[in-house]
């Protein structure tokens, strides 16, 4: 069952009036895959993600996430996914521990499970000594790592990461990607958007969105061959130029 699809998207479109922010995109994501969802700012990445996680209605097209339909079963989708937005979304005025308890709680985890999980999580992140500090007082990189761990707390089948590494230093980005690999190893599918092209190299497969459409979709290696370049950055630049 290694090739089972956890996301199936067909002609998914989101229009705001005459403007099509997302224009008939189609793709599949396989279980356990790290799927890179690339594109320039304003290419429609965030709009597409919002439709997949059930907080925005598509204008047309089909999409299934973890076997659930985005039109009819958004709540079922929400139970099975984790999400980390590009805006940092933990509560600044709650402590690390309180944030963990809160999000664990609203995903319906039992107190016992929350206690065990948060203990492991804090040790892994090296945050057990600052668990009673307000999240607002932590450096951005720590917040992002914490945010990712919280998104994984309820063991979702897929995690959607919307530009998770924006604004953090290279070392933290490195550590962050180690966390992503670890989660993927444990069978979680990772759906990640980024505009750091070096990060694209870490993905199993990437799609590149330009002006609402997916213009390329393959493994980084194949894409580089196809465009006869040596880095994903160049793939991206070539694609963007072609469109213009």
């Amino acid at each position: 069952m290694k090739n089972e699809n956890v996301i199936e998207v067909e002609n998914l479109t989101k229009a705001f009036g005459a403007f099509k922010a997302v224009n008939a995109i189609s793709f599949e994501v396989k279980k356990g895959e790290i799927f890179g969802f690339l594109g320039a700012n304003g290419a429609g990445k965030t709009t597409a993600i919002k439709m997949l996680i059930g907080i925005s209605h598509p204008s047309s097209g089909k999409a299934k996430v973890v076997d659930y339909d985005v039109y009819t079963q958004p709540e079922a989708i929400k139970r099975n996914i984790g999400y980390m937005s590009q805006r940092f979304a933990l509560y600044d005025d709650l402590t690390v521990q309180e944030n963990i308890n809160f999000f664990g709680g609203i995903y319906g985890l039992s107190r016992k499970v929350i206690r065990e999980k948060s203990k492991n999580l804090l040790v892994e992140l090296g945050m057990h000594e600052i668990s009673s500090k307000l999240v607002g007082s932590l450096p951005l990189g720590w917040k992002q790592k914490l945010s990712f761990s919280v998104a994984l707390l309820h063991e979702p089948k897929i995690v959607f990461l919307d530009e998770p590494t924006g604004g953090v230093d290279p070392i933290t980005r490195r550590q962050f990607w180690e966390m992503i690999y670890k989660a993927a190893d444990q069978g979680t599918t990772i759906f990640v958007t980024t505009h750091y092209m070096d990060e694209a190299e870490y993905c199993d497969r990437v799609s590149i969105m330009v002006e609402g459409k997916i213009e390329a979709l393959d493994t980084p290696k194949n894409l580089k061959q196809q465009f006869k370049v040596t880095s994903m950055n160049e793939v991206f630049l070539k694609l963007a130029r072609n469109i213009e």
Partner: protein
Amino acid sequence: MRTIGYIIQKEFKQIFRNKGMLPIIFILPILQLVILSNAATYEVKNIKFAYIDADRTSTSRSLIEKFNASSYFDVLMDLPSNKMANSAMLAGEVDVVLEIPNHFERNLIKEKSATLGISINAIDGAAAGLESVYINQIIQGYNRDIRVSLMDTSHRSIKPMNISSIPSFWYNTSLDYKTFMVPGILVLLVTMITLFLSGMNIVREKEIGTLEQINVTPIKKSQFIIGKLFPFWIIGMGLLTIGLILAKLIFNTPMLGSIPLLYLYTSIYILVILGMGLLISNFTDTQQQAMFIAWFFIVIFILMSGLFTPIESMPQWAQIFTEINPIKYFVEVMRMVLLKGSGLQDILPQLLKTLAYALVMNALAVWSYKKVN
């Protein structure tokens, strides 16, 4: 149920952690209740009184003496001329000028009749009306005394008819304004705090981005809303309790009726306000917008509630409009239950309307709260 518990817990933590807000939520209302209740009085006292005595006789002096003796008037000055009187009134130094014309005494004795001029600053029409009543009372009393002393008994004419009216002020024999205002101001404070806090709460999460995070969790709309609003409900009830205790201790406000009844009503009333706050939250994108709207409604609701000015004096269309003012019902119930001892039977209309209001408001609020856009 457990999910709701987590949200409630989180909200309380956030409220109590915000050290800047705590005094605004708890200390400010209490201070205002204690201090401002003393300000809300229509009583007219210390009336700034001046006179022009062109007669300068014992009669005119004894009339002025009567005003001096009254507790309503502060006799401030003896003005030499009309012109001075005018400018003193323009400058706001005096509010009432009594003008005793030349030959006042002579006319009264010789012609058996004399006139007095009285000018009242009538910008505050209601106060001017009262001032005029007080002035007439003093002058009439003085007139009676004069008549008795001037008339010889043999000459006494036929006795006129006299109706004596005996006023009887129920529930507030001393006409104490604090008795009337404290319950009303308490209503306002409970309403303002709960409306502003709930109106800002969800839109705040929208602004800082955490609402999106909540929306991707499998939490149900109703769970989220109940969890969000419950803490404010508790705060509202808490404020009511503190307010009632202070009313009793500081103002000795009468509490004739059933306190549990008052709590029953308030518990429903706060739901109306919270529903309204949530509705505002749903239809706005920023806290600024939310507050403008909340402010717009609250000012209208306050001034149309019968709290400061009587509803029955309003024109018909305005009275109909007050029917949709929740604060009006709460003010009525609070005063009826505390001051008159009205029971469930008496406040049933208000209670039912409030209940209906709560259902409609919250239904609208839940319906318009969208996890998806």
